[in-house]
């Protein structure tokens, strides 16, 4: 595919200087919004994403009430100024699909049975987008749920892996997503060892499929440590401070 040569050089170094299995810098903050019951802000590469949670609260319209559990609503939305060309603010088909898969990735972690007849709302707003925004959104949204004090089985953490030519790489940025040969967003519940989101595009041999998938699991566990630190800072560290990681290249 076009552009493959420029994306990764003969020494395996990517455009932004990363090796195949490195993450972009990630910064997490929990408890950043005044009105929301829970919130988290993530900067991941050039992604800037805010997640806010309201609830458990009364369900409107009433006919949507679930008698045995909470109704979890989720909207993933991109700000018109978040991308190169202005995006129409109305929800696109892509955003509707992503809202659905994020919701389905979060529900298994939330103990929805603890809040019958209520609604829990998760709003994910992409302020600036740079590839991998859905997994970054999930990572922030699960922190916002935890910040809201909602009972959870585990956190949910996302990471996307993919292909540049036949090389498996972790955490594609915008250029690599568009010019590369495949993208595989994965979300996991790290303590339970379960996958709650999996999407694939690109052409993977069976071997590369497994390699990319397992790399996403490994990277997810790494980001989970940052989620824990961000929550620790939120609840025991006074002012909300950002948590950054320095990653050693393998």
């Amino acid at each position, binding site marked *: 595919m076009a552009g493959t040569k420029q994306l990764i050089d003969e020494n395996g170094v990517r455009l932004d200087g990363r090796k195949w299995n490195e993450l972009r810098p990630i910064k997490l903050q929990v408890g950043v919004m005044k009105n929301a019951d829970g919130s988290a802000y993530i900067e991941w590469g050039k992604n800037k994403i805010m997640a806010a949670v309201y609830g458990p609260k009364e369900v409107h319209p009433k006919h949507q009430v679930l008698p045995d559990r909470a109704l979890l609503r989720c909207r993933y939305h991109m700000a018109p100024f978040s991308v190169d060309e202005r995006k129409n603010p109305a929800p696109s*088909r*892509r955003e*509707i*699909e992503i*809202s*659905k*898969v994020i*919701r*389905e990735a979060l*529900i*298994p972690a939330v103990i929805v049975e603890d809040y019958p007849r209520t609604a829990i709302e998760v709003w994910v707003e992409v302020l600036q987008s740079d590839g991998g925004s859905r997994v970054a959104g999930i990572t922030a949204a699960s922190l916002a749920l935890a910040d809201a004090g909602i009972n959870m089985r585990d956190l949910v953490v996302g990471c996307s892996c993919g292909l540049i030519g036949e090389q498996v790489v972790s955490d594609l940025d915008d250029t690599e997503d*568009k010019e590369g040969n*495949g993208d*595989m967003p994965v979300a996991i*519940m790290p303590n*339970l*060892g*379960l*996958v*709650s*989101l*999996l*999407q*694939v*595009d*690109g*052409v*993977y*041999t*069976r071997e590369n*499929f*497994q390699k990319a*998938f*397992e790399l996403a*699991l490994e990277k997810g566990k790494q980001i989970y440590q940052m989620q824990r630190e961000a929550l620790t800072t939120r609840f025991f560290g006074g002012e909300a401070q950002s948590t950054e990681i320095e990653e050693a290249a393998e």
Partner: protein
Amino acid sequence: MSMMKKNHVVESITKERMVQLLASGKRLDGRALDQPRNLNIETGVIPKANGSARVSLGNTLVLAGVKIATGIPFPDTPDKGILMVNAEILPMSSPYAEAGPPSEDAIELARVTDRGIRESEMVDMTKLGLIPGKSVIAVFVDCNIMNVDGNLFDATSYAVVAALRTAKMNRYVVKDDKAVATDELIPVPVERTPVSVTIARIGDKLVVDPNSEEEASMDMRITITTDDDGNICASQKGEASTISPEQVLQAADTSISVGRTIRAKILEATR
């Protein structure tokens, strides 16, 4: 899909029975765990379309039609054609389907189907360019879901593949910087045969090609599309539940092997 949820009491009794049977490797309709339902493909059913296919997978019925026209290329691919795959769940298809703007389920169906066709590079888009930056051939595939009995993802994908494989389009020539259609009919430049295989988890068992009854009892669904070489080119996990890493790899292997059999059937029907 959520719209298939019916009577909760009957549903839970059915699920109980289904899980018991699955433990001994059987399904309610007598199929093996990795056995898809009967697949029937008829092509050329709508002569006014450039290509068409009526596909039934058990009682799920999908009609796909291809329409081809010229269009303006996307700015980032000035010399490549346009391919759009869309799907609509008709209100006639089930007592639970509704008229109106597309539901979340319908949008997911259309996008997952499109992804499998696009990512496998089934159609060689470089052969659909006419005048770089100005004019290209645009291929629209629209799918009507006529009857719902589970696994819309696979039935829709097979209908798209069959319709595209048998579609004919006018050959275009460029005259005075304009694309002009000639009377000569040529096939769409199809290179690959993507095959989607959807697997549901009921209890802890994975079953291929779930029908409506099984979908009402499943807690997880995964669709995996493979190409002629057994490469994986698209996937989507569905439902508000999780899957273990081992089952992801198991599903990948099942979809490669089941996909091989189905691909042979599609190729046979669209020769």
